[in-house]
Structure formats: C-alpha cells, structure tokens
C-alpha cells in the first residue's frame, strides 16, 4: 500500500468518525435539551397544580370563590355554575310518627355554587391544570 493511498484511507476514516460523532453529539444534545425541557415543564406543572389545589380548597372550605386573573406565570380562569346532582341512591325514610313529614330536602343544593378553574401559561396559552368543586354548604 502506498503512502498516498494510506493517507486517503485515513482521511475517509476520519471523516466517517467525525460524522458519527456529530450525529451522536446532536442526538445527545437533543436528549439533554428534551430532558431539561421536561424538567422545566414539570416544575411549571407542579406550580400550577399547587395553585389549583389552593383555589379548589378555598372554594370547598367556605373561604369564598377564588377570582380570575394572573398569578405568576399563569392565567387563572374561574367559572361559576349552579351546583346540582343526578339523583338519590338511598330512598328517604318514612318516619313512623303520626303526621310527621318524610322526604329528603334537596332544593337547597341549587344554592351552592360549582366552581370550575382552568389554569394556563400566560405567555403560551398552554393548559396546565383544571378542576372543579362545589362551595361549602
């Protein structure tokens, strides 16, 4: 093998090695970037979930209905509806005393408020958390 041919082979090998290295490096960098991005999203999601939990707890426990607006990097949208139910599972008992009234009073349920909370990232509009509950009786 002549010196010139050997040098040419070495050059090809070096080029192939460089290409493989570049490809591997790119994939690795992309994976690291995706992992870092996932970490950031996890942190943002955890922050949003904490905010959602606080707002749901406020509504549920009788401390008032949380307001819409921005909170840190998030936009909180609060919608309110009349609370309701689909039906009774148990039938009402019939008191045995003379002249007593029976029946479960269900009309008051409509005085409760269903609170629906949607949290999005303000800059991107991406949905990060949502949930609903009903105000305290």
């Amino acid at each position, binding site marked *: 093998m002549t010196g010139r041919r050997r040098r040419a082979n070495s050059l090809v090998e070096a080029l192939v090695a460089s290409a493989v290295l570049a490809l591997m490096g790119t994939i*690795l960098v992309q994976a690291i970037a995706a992992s870092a991005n996932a970490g950031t999203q996890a942190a943002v999601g955890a922050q949003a*979930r904490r905010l959602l939990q606080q707002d749901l707890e406020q509504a549920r426990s009788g401390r008032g209905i949380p307001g819409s607006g921005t909170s840190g990097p998030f936009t909180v949208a609060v919608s309110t509806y009349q609370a309701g*139910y689909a039906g009774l599972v*148990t039938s009402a*008992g019939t008191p045995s*005393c003379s002249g007593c009234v029976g029946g479960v009073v269900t009309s008051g349920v409509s005085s409760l408020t269903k609170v629906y909370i949607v949290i999005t990232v303000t800059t991107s509009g991406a949905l990060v958390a*949502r*949930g609903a509950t*009903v105000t305290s009786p």
Partner: protein
Amino acid sequence: MPQSHPRRPGARRGQALLGALVAVGVVALLVAGLYNLAIEGSQAGQASLAQIAMMGIAEAGLNVTAKMVIDTANQSLVQNLQQVPRSTAQSWGQSSTSYSAAQGNFQTMMTQYGPFAWYGAFPNSVQSAPQAAVVCAYGTQNGAGTSDDTWEACVGLIAIPSPLPSWQDNGVTATLTFPIGLLAHAWVWQGPPSGSPPGAYLGEVTSYSPTNLPGSIVITYQDCPAYYQPASCTLPTGVQVTVPPGQLLENDPNVSTPAAP
C-alpha cells in the same frame, strides 16, 4: 530481541468499528435514559393533577350531599321532633348511660322522627361503620380531562360515644341534649354514570366530625306545675339540630368501594 510486527489494516478497522459501536451503544443508552426520565416526570405530573381533580369532584359530592342532610335536619327533622313527648325525651336522656344505649335511642329517634334512610352500619365503610341516618346521592363533575366524571357520596348522622346524651331540668325548663357526629364518604369514577362498561374507579375521600367538635340535637320543654299540665307542657318549646362540620381524610384504607351508580 523479538521485533513487534505492525498490525494489519483490516484488524485496525475492526477495532475502530468495535470502538464506534461501543460509543454508539453508550450514547444510545444515555439518550434512552434521558427520554425515559422526561416521560416518567410527565406521567407523574399527570397522575398528580388527576388526583387533585378527583379530590375536587369527591369534595363537591360531599358538599352537595351534606347540604341535603343539613337542610333535611333543619327542616323535616326539626318539624318532626316537635312531636316528641316530654317523657320520651326524658327517657332518651336518662337511659343513654352507655354508647350502645345511646345508639339504640338514636335509632329510635331517627326511625320514628327522621326522614333519612336508616342503616345498621354506615354503607361501604369497613372500619368505624356505626349505625347511621344516611343520605346517599350521585352526580357528575368536570374532571382533569374534558369529560365529566361521576361521584357518589353518602353523608350520615351518628350517635357518638362521648359525650353521652343528657337530660337536665332546672325547674323552669328541661332539656334533652343528644350529641351527634357526622360520617361521610365520597367515591369517584371516570366518565358518566351508568357507563357501559363503568369507568375506572379514581378514588375516595372521607369526611368525619372530630370528637372534640360534636353536633347536637337539643329539645327543650317548659316545666309546668303538677296541677297544671296542658298539652304545651308535654311537647317541646324548642328544637335545634346542629350538624357538625367534617374533617377530610383522603384515601381512607378502611373504606370499601360500592358499585358505580
């Protein structure tokens, strides 16, 4: 002295290929690990969000059903208890010298005067399943996804071991004080009620009144002299029912799951 022979070009290329393959394998493992980490983090976040949404639904069910119990207690039960004869109330107060006696008197009170369903044991509760005057309801609520999920909640009034009921007569008025507690569970399923097949079971939230904050049923009578006993002296002059507030307990391991409504 032995002379080392230079390696053949084929062997050198084989070594280079092996080295490259090892490097590729190591990088591939690293990349797969990083992506797996990202996916697991995302799944954990989604599970956490679903858990919060489930709790919101269960708590909504508890609040809706508790409202029914409170309104029924303050309206129908109070109205019915206006007919309790003084002698009966006195007997309830004076004979409740033990928890089981108090439970027996509570059962009599609730089955004769209460418009609730009576259960010998609180439904679908393995531990602490006392007899109770119960309302169970079901409904739907927005979940973490776009569709509604189904809740079922049972809220019950129970007799409590301490303090026991009492009868007090100060010569002007006589009062029966009957301490009561609250026990409630709410269960959540994915999707609408009566789904076919029913959606996945998502979780449970328990609510109970702490022992230091009982509610009560208080029935008051006017004392009349022995020579003057009109009907107003044998019937209550006042009835008050106070349903105690509940404290939440998430994922109570001692609660069984009913069939989806």
